[in-house]
């Protein structure tokens, strides 16, 4: 285990470095000080940075409001939502106050809001949601969805450094399961997608934890002689249309995969961009794969059938490749 770092530790590490590098940074959230957060993403940070890590009341609206006011005064707050799902209570402050501030008043709003996102078995409808599409709908927000330990670290630092409000969607499933040797070197900036796996027969565009499922599905299809390209969006807004189109230009076939609900959303946006800007690149109808259009189920049996999986991604790819 020595020398290895998990996705969660990378998030903690990034916050540690942000606090150390910039006195304007502070952390605000529920149970994050002494307790270290529900997932321990701020473990020991309160001790190491006294007076910079604050337990907030259970008031998501006011937590975000406070961060916005502080940002106006030059601070660079990081707000931890205990679960992405609860950010709905702070929704108004995020989309109406933070997102509009620069446009309305030319005042910077460097707020980073961390959303522990996505599903894990047994978490049910209110501890499993993926909120990126809802926030991406609003102008004035940057929405990042790191899928790797390296991105978890660097994109959080980049988010804090941005002068705009950032919704940082960290996937709970990756917290403990995803490990890397180190946080690596800074690679791509926010706004650039990454070719997570090169290929030439079909493109899977996805983000966050689904990147790993897509790669495993691609490995499964390699058995059949197919080279599947996997594009990790990294940030869903801005969306790197050029990289997506470049990949589809190579493969002619597109599958967009997202863990979120099917209506609208990131996969719909990917397909709409490719259909309108890259119609001539498509040799097969673009496909999408999302969770089912129901709330997220509690029981693991139901949950596993609710969301895209390695085998459903592989199945979708087979349909796409057979076209």
């Amino acid at each position: 285990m020595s020398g290895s770092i998990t996705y969660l530790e990378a998030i903690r590490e990034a916050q540690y470095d942000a606090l150390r590098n910039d006195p304007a940074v502070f952390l605000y959230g529920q149970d994050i000080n002494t307790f270290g957060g529900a997932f321990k993403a701020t473990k020991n940070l309160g001790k190491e940075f006294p007076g910079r890590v604050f337990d907030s009341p259970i008031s998501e609206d006011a937590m975000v409001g406070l961060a916005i006011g502080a940002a106006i005064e030059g601070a660079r707050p990081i707000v931890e939502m205990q679960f992405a799902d609860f950010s709905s209570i702070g929704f108004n402050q995020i989309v109406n106050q933070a997102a509009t501030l620069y446009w309305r008043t030319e005042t910077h709003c460097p707020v980073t809001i961390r959303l522990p996102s996505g599903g894990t078995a047994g978490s049910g409808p209110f501890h499993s949601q993926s909120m990126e599409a809802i926030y991406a709908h609003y102008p004035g927000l940057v929405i990042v969805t790191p899928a790797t330990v390296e991105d978890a670290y660097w994109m959080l630092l980049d988010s804090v450094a941005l002068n705009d409000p950032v919704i940082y969607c960290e996937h709970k499933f990756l917290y403990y399961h995803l490990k890397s040797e180190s946080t690596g070197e800074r690679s791509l900036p926010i706004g650039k997608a990454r070719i997570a796996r090169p290929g030439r027969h079909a493109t899977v565009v996805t983000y966050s934890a689904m990147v790993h499922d897509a790669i495993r599905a691609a490995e499964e299809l390699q058995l059949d002689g197919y080279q599947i390209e996997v594009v990790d969006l990294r940030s869903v807004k801005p969306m790197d249309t050029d990289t997506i189109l470049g990949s589809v230009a190579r493969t002619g076939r597109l599958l967009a995969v997202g863990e979120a609900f099917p209506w609208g959303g990131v996969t719909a946006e990917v397909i709409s961009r490719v259909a309108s800007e890259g119609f001539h690149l498509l040799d097969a109808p673009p496909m999408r794969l999302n969770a089912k259009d129901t709330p997220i189920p509690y029981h693991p049996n139901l949950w596993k059938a609710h969301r895209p999986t390695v085998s459903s991604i592989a199945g979708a790819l087979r349909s796409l490749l057979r076209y």
Partner: protein
Amino acid sequence: MPTIPILMPQLGESIAEATIVRILVDSGCSVEAASDLFEVETNKATMSVTAPCAGKVTQIVAVPQTSYAVGSTLAAFEISEEDAQNLGFTDAPQPSIAQQHTTSMADIVENLHFQISDDDVISSPQPKVEPVVGGLPVPAGATGASYISPRMRARMLELGLNASDLAGVPGTGAGGRVTVEDFEAFLRGLEQHRMTKASPMRIAVADSMRRAWTRPLATVGSPIMLDAMLAHRKKANPKPGPALYAIRALALALAENTAVAGRLIGNRIVHPRAIDIGFAVEVEDGVFVPVIREVDKIPLVKLVPTYNKLVEQARARRLPHDMNRPGIATVTNFGTFGIVWATPIPLPEQNLILGLGAGSKVPHWSEEVKQFIPVTEAEITLSFDHRVCDGGAAGRLLKRVAELLQRPEDL
């Protein structure tokens, strides 16, 4: 020993999924090559999924009475190294169902609010792929290049190709359609051949014929005796060519019933505004079709100078360009090449083309003299858009033309 997935096979064209009716083996049992493993049912038939070689069923994923997309994993199958080599499963990674869980619970750091269990690993067996996988619209009967994807269309436009250029390309896509890969392979194949540039005239004719060929065309034919016409021609001054007799005869016949020369557009017959008739003139590497206006209103002899002038202009490639009023039918005298019978294709904007075969002396039984007499006979043909009229109407028109040609003095 390697483990391979047993997949739902493609059980016929346009079949996207099939239902498991029965599972014929138990998990853990060893089977011979080609043993039936599953009984599956499509909307067309009931079939078996069989073992690709001898091996052991290590896990059954499929559930009876459940529908699976083609390509879905139904079972895990353990086989020998040798069989794996033969089946092409060489250095490829293991399928997901055989994946090992690599993270242990001990690795999970303290998490007091919320436990994430290691059993959540996404690669646990997935019984169903529907309905999160939407069905793709597999084009029914899209064999070959009859269905063209946006990418194919863009590529063809780039290369200036038409669907008919791809007629000989075998398709490997859904329903046998030609995929971009098939297309590119076809293009690579062409590079092996000697290629010369087609003339602009060839390309123009090709375009016209391609458009013309989008309709269901049919041809009727009939013999006629040319003696009356030839006799008339001998006396006439100036002398009309055989094609001009046919042009005039066709014009008079059409004037009696313009509907046959109409075009079917949607659910309406579009009648011609005037009896303008074209005629084919062979030029180098192609054909021109000059048009004589209102042929029904001008007597035959008066048409001769117009006809001759147009032939001259066509050969010099100096035809007056009048695209606003193309002819309503065309006459082609393929008899000049010694051809007796042909099925010429009507121009894309026309419904009819009248063909004239070469004449020859044949014995003809005369009831008057009760013996065979020599006559000059030729076949005339009429090709038509079968959507606009049927063989009967076309035949009646042809008979009427033949009749008129028997009385050249009335032309």
